[in-house]
């Protein structure tokens, strides 16, 4: 029983680790999409900033600087997205896709040019990256039954970005629902004309939104390469940006619900790694591959209105043009 309990806690612990970039990207997606700009480029921004963070950390050894550069790079991609979709009223999906493919090619190209390790960055060690933070007394109270392991295994031992991600949810939620900026942001994604006639610039609001999305994706990228991982590996985002997109949709474009979706998808991921090949009664052999497909399947079912009702921002995807 104790063994199962420990295994369970370790799974929860892994869930948090896996979910962290999803949470950050889902919040990024919420900012962008609630302002009316579709953002399928979460993946590309995360990949590019993961590479940037790992490169800077490898060269300077300073994780905080690396994080900052990662954010900068991601915001730059956001601005390209904004330039195409807001300024030039281009197709938002095409623009996002372009950024994803561009990032995919550029990271490897630059990686080889900079480090000549087949697209990887050098292995980061020690204080070149964000290390796990062991909370006080974690070891001391580990042996207290029930609560001890929860504290030691689940709560303690995460790096700073895991905490930033959780904080991001709280902040996103507060900004969206409790500030005038959030009010305007939500309005601009639902009915930009209403914002325009109230004397507020739709363009400016949307640029602000995509920039915030860039910041959050930048943090997510840095997490992958210099906190969770120890260096950049080609294609290291491996579709996480799209899972985050799915989680955001599954969470109905709302911060807290998106957090739950991220945790659920993260949990599925953590479980999948542990149950591969397990024989279960009735079900037979468990396939981790199919478990990993569940987030996508659930999102499709959700979007089709079979569970709950998806309510995307009303003005999403449509460039704002003043009526003639």
């Amino acid at each position, binding site marked *: 029983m104790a063994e199962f309990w420990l295994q369970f806690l370790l799974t929860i612990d892994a869930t948090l680790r896996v979910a962290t970039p999803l949470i950050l990207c889902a919040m990024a997606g919420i900012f962008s999409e609630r302002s009316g700009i*579709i953002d*399928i480029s979460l993946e590309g921004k995360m990949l590019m900033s993961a590479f940037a963070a790992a490169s800077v950390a490898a060269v300077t050894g300073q994780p905080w600087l690396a994080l900052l550069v990662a954010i900068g790079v991601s915001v730059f991609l956001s601005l*390209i997205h904004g*330039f*195409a*979709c807001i300024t*030039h*009223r*281009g*197709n*938002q*999906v*095409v*623009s996002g*896709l*372009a*950024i*994803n*493919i*561009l*990032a*995919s*090619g*550029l990271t*490897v*190209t*630059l990686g*080889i*040019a*900079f480090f*000549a390790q087949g*697209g990887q960055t050098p292995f980061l060690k020690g204080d070149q990256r964000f290390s796990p933070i062991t909370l006080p007394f974690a070891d001391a109270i580990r042996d207290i039954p029930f609560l001890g392991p929860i504290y030691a295994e689940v709560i303690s031992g995460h790096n700073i970005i895991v905490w930033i991600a959780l904080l991001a949810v709280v902040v996103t939620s507060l900004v969206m629902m409790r500030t005038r900026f959030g009010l305007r942001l939500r309005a601009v994604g639902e009915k930009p004309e209403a914002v325009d006639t109230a004397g507020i610039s739709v363009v400016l609001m949307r640029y602000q939104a995509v920039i915030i999305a860039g910041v959050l994706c930048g943090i997510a990228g840095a997490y992958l390469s210099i906190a969770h991982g120890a260096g950049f590996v*080609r294609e290291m985002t491996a*579709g996480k940006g*799209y899972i985050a*997109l*799915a989680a955001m*949709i599954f969470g109905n474009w709302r911060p807290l619900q998106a957090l739950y979706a991220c945790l659920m998808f993260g949990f599925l991921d953590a479980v999948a790694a542990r149950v591969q090949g397990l024989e279960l009664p009735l079900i037979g052999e468990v*396939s981790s*591959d*199919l478990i*990993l*497909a569940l987030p*996508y*399947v659930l*999102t*499709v079912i959700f*979007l*089709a*209105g079979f569970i709950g009702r*998806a309510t995307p921002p009303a003005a999403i995807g449509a460039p704002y043009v003043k009526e003639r």
Partner: protein
Amino acid sequence: MSTTLPRWIDIGVLPLLNILAAFIVSGIIIAIIGENPFTALGVMLKGAFVYKGALGYTLFYTTNFIFTGLAVAVAFHATLFNIGGEGQAMMGGLGIGLLVLALDAVVPAFLLIMLAIPVSALMGAAWGAVPGYLQAKRGSHVVITTIMFNFIASSIMVWLLAGTLMEQGQMAPETRDFAEGVGLFKFHEIAGMMGIKVARSPLNLSFVIALIAAFGVWVLIWRTRLGYVIRATGHSEKAAVYAGHSPQRIIIITMAISGGLAGMMALNEILGVQHKLILDFTSGFGFTGIAVALMGRNHPVGIIFASLLFGALYQGGAELDFEFQTITREMVLMIQGLIILFSGALVYMFNPMVERLYHRIVGPEKGAA
């Protein structure tokens, strides 16, 4: 859309400007990483066209892009955005794989090949029609659904290839080889039979099928009633309803056709070269189809040329691997991303500039018809 510019500028000059912009930015990036962009271009051109067998490889890649490019273009004509080419191609491959693995012991190779062609199209069509149905009847947007369907298809492939379909005693996630003779003729084999010596390359009969498909799409879109209605629906749903058509029905049919074309890409890779089902044979070519369709302006002729360009980029990109320490074929991915950006999302960026320039040269308002 500019109406004050003559047609030759609209379909000739502007697209070229967009591609040029993509290549200039690529050149700048190459220069930044310390190589000469013109040398790189030269290497790519040689790698794509000059070296022995190079052209065969280039056309082999071209084949993939024609299929996926046509798929995207057909959907675009109904203003649908099919990002699901990857998944649809995987399903096409899965269809071929299951068919051949199940029957190659009993059914003659020729018959199997003849069956495999429609099966690949049908499997892809099914994988496209479901998102179409979900958009038409359930209101879920085809863009998001096709993205999800790519991942679902990929998971199914991993599950089957690393499980049930994996060859006994093998570690690689792939099936056993198809029976001898179950595969499309290679071009150099056909040429050999006719006594002409051609360098070995993976170029196979799929290329011809792709060209036929391109012609078929041209006929469909511009020479059939269905194509007419697809275009009418794409331009104005109201007009389509007025004319007595159901946009829902057209959405589903168009997505099925689009998916079918993407599914046929598997002919080239699976039945043309691999002769077994492998993982990730689509290699992102489904996404390249979007760049191809955008560049080719959704016209089959444009798509063939754009596919050739991308075929050359991919084959020439492989050559970069050999020639340079610092440049690899991923460079091509980067160029692809830039082309999608400039020919797609920023497609009208140069219009005002060109318009101003044109009117300064030709005189104001003269260009209007």
